[in-house]
């Protein structure tokens, strides 16, 4: 396999995993934020290795504030790497034999 093909072979799952995991995390936290507002939950903050993922602040007047942090991209990065790792692992032997 040529080097360029090899790079593409691993870059594709990385990019796809990055996009999918980032989007799913963002969407998941958005729903979580809406649910928190509907149920009147108290403020919370989630972070990964000190990087903010999501911050929900309930205000005294009943309103709320949501903030997304770079942690979402960090999760996307981890997801991309996981996808790439799996692609490498499962395609080590190019075979269709069962």
């Amino acid at each position: 396999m040529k080097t360029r093909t090899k790079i593409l072979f691993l870059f594709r799952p990385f990019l796809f995993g990055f996009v999918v995991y980032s989007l799913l995390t963002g969407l998941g936290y958005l729903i979580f934020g809406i649910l928190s507002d509907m149920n009147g939950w108290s403020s919370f903050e989630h972070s990964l290795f000190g990087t903010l993922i999501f911050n929900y602040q309930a205000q005294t007047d009943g309103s709320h504030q949501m903030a997304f942090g770079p942690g979402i991209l960090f999760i996307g990065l981890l997801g991309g790497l996981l996808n790439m790792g799996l692609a490498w692992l499962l395609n080590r032997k190019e075979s269709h034999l069962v």
Partner: protein
Amino acid sequence: MIRDTTIPVWPEHVELTKDAIQDHVLDIRHEINDVSYEILQEVDGHRSIIEICNRVCKKHNWPPEQVLPDIRELVLQLNERYLINVRQQRSLKIWLQERWITVLVFMRILQGADWQTRHRIDLGADKGIGITAIGRIGMAVLKAHGLLGFFLVAITSFLLFALEVNEWLWQGICVGFFYLLGNILHEWGHHVSYQKSNDGRRPSFLAVKRLVLQIVRRQTTPENEWKITLAGPLLPFAMALIIAVLVWMGYWPGSDLFGWAVVIVLGIHPLSLIPPAEDGKRLMEAIRARKLLVKQEGE
């Protein structure tokens, strides 16, 4: 995925002759050698690859352990060119394996031709543009997008349930239904436009891969290519616009969130006109062909 227990089946309008496989839809003749003919003669839509191997090996006294990989490779190559369909044995284990492979292919974890199984569904001129054609397109859409439709139902239902929307389950199911309906309308739009753009009806077939579906047909003039390509996303997009107005005016039955989810699954179809999507590629080809024609006329 081609397994030893996979059953090869001849698609409609594909004929095996002594020295070639004739594709009557695209009018292409694929030459084959004597050994391939001997093997392909045994394909009857019931025998699996291993059974075919045992039969030809017994007949010609060939070693099965050497012939089996060759038969598998032959079936794989023909399947890649949509010259042979494959059917898996009825087994829950294989069914689950296939769905799991589809997820891994979607995530780009599994890549390459080995993981794909292609299916050709005839959409010939004799099938017209009515119920039969729609039925066949529906079958192809279920094969290609059924799993995504199922995930969409699961995600939307969960979302509506989490947001405490009444009747969340049927609204979630309806989002999946509209997603599949949008894809049926998309392909039907291409098909109707193709059949109507010519003097007589012309044959074509639906090429189904995991998560991918397209109509394979003969090339027409650049003007017709434009019309055929644009006709696909037109119907679902028009439907999305109507539903958007209904939701906005408050006439949509069900929650607003459900309504907008339907608008999104139908309204994204024009994105298929952007390359590298198949419609986008065809559009670019039509533009290039038109430019070439204009240049030639100028000279």
